[in-house]
C-alpha cells in the first residue's frame, strides 16, 4: 500500500473517531440537562390552597384599577401577595416615623403601579401627619383616573390641612 493511501485511510479513521466522540458528548449533555417544556411560574412550591391576596367579593382591584400615568402594572412588575403585604407593612411603619427620609419614601410610593401599595402610601402619608405631604397628595389626585382613589387622596389633603388636636394640660 502506498504511503499516501495509508495516510488517507488513517485520516478517515480519525474523522470517524471524532464524529463518534462528538455524538457521545452531545448525548451526555442531554442526559444531564434535559430540556423540558414545563413553564416556570412565579408560584413557589407551597400547599395547594396557598392564599391569594385578600380581595373583595367583587372583581380584583388589581384588574379594575386604571393604570397610573407613570407606572404600568404588568406581569413583569407585578409583586407577589407576600411582597405586597411586606411593602404595605413597611409603609405602615414609615408612617409612624418622624424623619424626612421616611416621608420621602412614602410619597414616592404614591405612584407605585400596585393599587394596594398606593393606598398604603396614602394612609402612611396621613399618619405621618406632616402637611408637607399635601403637594404630593394633590399631584397624585390630579394624575389618577380612578375616581375612588382621587377622592381618598383629596380627603387625605383635607385631613392634613386641619390643625392637629392640642389637648391642654388640665388645671
Amino acid at each position: 500500500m502506498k504511503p499516501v493511501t495509508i495516510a488517507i485511510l488513517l485520516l478517515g479513521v480519525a474523522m470517524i473517531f471524532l464524529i463518534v466522540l462528538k455524538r457521545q458528548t452531545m448525548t451526555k449533555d442531554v442526559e444531564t440537562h434535559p430540556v423540558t417544556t414545563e413553564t416556570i411560574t412565579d408560584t413557589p412550591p407551597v400547599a395547594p390552597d396557598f392564599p391569594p391576596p385578600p380581595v373583595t367579593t367583587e372583581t380584583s382591584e388589581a384588574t379594575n384599577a386604571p393604570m397610573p400615568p407613570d407606572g404600568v402594572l404588568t406581569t413583569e412588575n407585578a409583586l407577589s401577595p407576600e411582597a405586597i403585604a411586606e411593602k404595605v407593612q413597611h409603609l405602615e411603619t414609615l408612617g409612624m416615623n418622624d424623619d424626612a427620609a421616611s416621608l420621602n419614601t412614602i410619597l414616592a410610593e404614591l405612584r407605585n403601579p400596585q393599587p394596594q401599595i398606593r393606598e398604603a402610601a396614602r394612609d402612611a402619608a396621613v399618619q405621618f401627619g406632616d402637611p408637607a405631604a399635601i403637594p404630593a397628595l394633590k399631584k397624585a389626585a390630579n394624575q389618577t383616573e380612578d375616581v375612588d382613589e382621587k377622592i381618598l387622596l383629596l380627603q387625605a389633603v383635607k385631613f392634613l390641612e386641619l390643625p392637629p388636636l392640642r389637648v391642654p394640660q388640665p388645671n
Partner: protein
Amino acid sequence: MIASTENIKITMKNLRSFLPVLTAAALALAATAHATPAKLNDIKTISVEFKLQLQGSFTDDGTVRTYAKPTIQRLDTKGLLDILAADKYAQTNYPANFFPAGSKLALTGSGAVVVVNRNNELLVDVSDIIRIETSTNGIISGRVDNNTGLARPNDTELAITRITFDDTTIIGGKNFSFVIQGLDSIKTNDAVPNQSNGKYREVSNSQATNAAGEGQSNGTRFIITGSFKGSLNAVLQLPT
C-alpha cells in the same frame, strides 16, 4: 526583685478581695443587658384618622345666646399616642411623657391594647385607658374551615367596632374621653397550617369608615368622626 515580688503578691491579694465585687457587677450588667422588652408577634396594628368638632364659644346678650362655629381639629394615631404617653407618665407607669418615634398602637390576640416600639416590643399596656371592642353579632361571608375555624383561604366579617377612650380617672392625666364606633369590615386570609407544628400565616385587614361618636376634652364637648383601621400580618399557631 524581692520588692517587686512582694508588690505582685499584694496586687494579687487585692484582686482576690475585689473579685466578688467584680463578679457581682458583671452579673448585674449582664442581667440589665438581657432585660429587653418582650416582642409581640400576634398584634394588630391600629391606626386612626379622626376629625373633632369641638364646641365653639358663645356670647350671651341676656336674650340670645350665640354659639360660634365648632373648632375643627384632627386626631391621628400619633396624637392619640401623645395623650396616652402623658397619661401613663402621670400614672408613673411609663418613664417619659412621650413614646419614641416609630411607636405603634396595637391590639393583642387577647384583646389588650398596647403600645409597642418599631420592633413590636412592648412599651406599655394601655388597656386601662383605651378599649377596642367588636360586636358579637357580626356576619361572615367567604370560606371557613370547619375544623380549625380559620379562613379557607379568605373570609370577611362585618361587625360593629367601638373604641372607648377615658383617662378622666388619672390624676394628672389629660382629662380626655370619647367613644366612637363604626361598621368594621374585617378581611382575613389564612394559610393552611403546617401539619407538624400547627403554625400558619394570617393576614387580616379591618377598616371602619364613617365612624362617629362623641367625647370631651378637658370639659369641652366634641363630636368625633372619621375612620380607623387594623392590620395584622403574623405567624400564628393553632391551639393544641
